[in-house]
């Protein structure tokens, strides 16, 4: 089998990876995009209303457009997950589930992964009452009682959406005060279906074939369990960077890959872009992810020209 050595492999097929590919194609950089989830987290956004030039578009449609744009410029996009990256002399060996690749440079566009509660029952009842995607699953909970775990905007948006279907929505938050936009608070105070439980953690999710109740670490209305049929976990995301620790890529104390203004990391030949980096003041928007992807591709181009 002939051994192709790519000039660049982009790992991740969300907005950062796809924008990097669009720029790489225009720079005529011989590259490959490998992603496990085309579109990344942006796919789940119900509406994106801050992408300049497009007033309102679904996350799926926007990322689909990006994918078509990248593919249309000739990008090779492979859907696969990476199990290992190692350095082999002047190259990096990238091992995916089904194939192995060699490349001179890498752009890590790894994105974020949903945080889990890591409590008993969470994994067991995934898809049987436990959900991480309110826009996908809210409609299955018509007339049911659900809990949203979390206290930020994503939890608030989940509660608001769920209240359209469910008979009751508990928002369970470990803190004293929700960290949400004022518009959500106004909505909550008017919505009789939504009830907020503060200073409380969920200890366990219980049921038989489906979720039936949750166990709280503190009594609420004199009981430490709560009857619910759904649990929506909205406690934020963390960078999906497990893969690169062994390469010696430096991350900050929250796990974000430390990047320079040109999106390079501390490892020569490895660049990073998008939500998983310390770039763009960690604003973590589709717009900033795409911008970082463009900068990373330009930096790779510069490096190739010099060498």
């Amino acid at each position, binding site marked *: 089998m002939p051994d192709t050595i790519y000039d660049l492999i982009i790992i991740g097929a969300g907005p950062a990876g796809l924008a990097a590919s669009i720029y790489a194609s225009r720079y005529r950089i011989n590259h490959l995009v490998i992603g*496990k*989830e*085309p*579109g990344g987290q942006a*796919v*789940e*956004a*119900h509406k994106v209303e801050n992408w300049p030039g497009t007033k309102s578009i*679904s*996350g*799926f449609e926007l990322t*689909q457009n990006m994918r078509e744009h990248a593919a249309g410029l000739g990008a090779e996009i492979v*859907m*696969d*997950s990476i199990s290992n990256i190692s350095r082999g002399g002047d190259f990096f060996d990238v091992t995916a*589930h*089904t194939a192995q690749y060699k490349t001179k440079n890498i752009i890590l566009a790894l994105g974020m992964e949903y945080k889990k509660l890591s409590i008993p029952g969470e994994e067991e009842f*995934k*898809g*049987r*009452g*436990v*959900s*991480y*995607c309110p*826009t*996908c*699953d809210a*409609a*299955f*909970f018509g007339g049911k009682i659900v809990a949203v775990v979390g206290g930020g905007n994503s939890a608030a948006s989940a509660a608001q959406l769920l209240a359209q279907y469910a008979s009751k929505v508990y928002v369970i938050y470990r803190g004293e005060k929700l960290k949400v936009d004022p518009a959500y608070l106004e909505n909550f105070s008017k919505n009789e279906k939504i009830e907020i439980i503060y200073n409380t953690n969920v200890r366990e999710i219980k049921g038989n*074939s*489906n979720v039936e109740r949750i166990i709280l670490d503190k009594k609420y209305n004199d009981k430490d369990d709560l009857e619910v049929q*759904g649990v929506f976990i909205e406690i934020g995301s963390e960078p999906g960077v497990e893969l690169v620790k062994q390469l010696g890529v430096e991350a900050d104390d929250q796990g974000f890959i430390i990047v320079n203004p040109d999106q390079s990391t501390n490892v020569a030949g490895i660049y990073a872009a998008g939500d998983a980096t310390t770039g763009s003041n960690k604003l973590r928007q589709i717009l900033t992810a795409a911008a970082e992807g463009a900068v990373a591709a330009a930096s790779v181009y510069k490096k190739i020209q010099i060498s």
Partner: protein
Amino acid sequence: MAMQFTDQNFEQEVLKSDKPVLVDFWAVWCGPCQMMGPIVEELAEELKDKYKIGKMNVDENRETASKFGIMSIPTLIIFKGGEAVKQFVGVQAKENLKEELEKA
């Protein structure tokens, strides 16, 4: 092309199929499902001789979705001999599904 399964044809096409069947439970409002769609189409094309592969819109076919307790989409189920033998929740990589079908 991926088959379209419905409440009406489910028993005949899925439960009574002589080949293992992969069913992708999906809905139009679900972004990750839209992402899964093309992967299922590709699998259907590549593996059409060995397996039956298709999609079921849960919004239009509530009976079957509720019978199998679908509460999260995309959910993909592999059926063999009328039984659900493997279930996946969330977007799955094509190769992973291929491997699991081969094991079925």
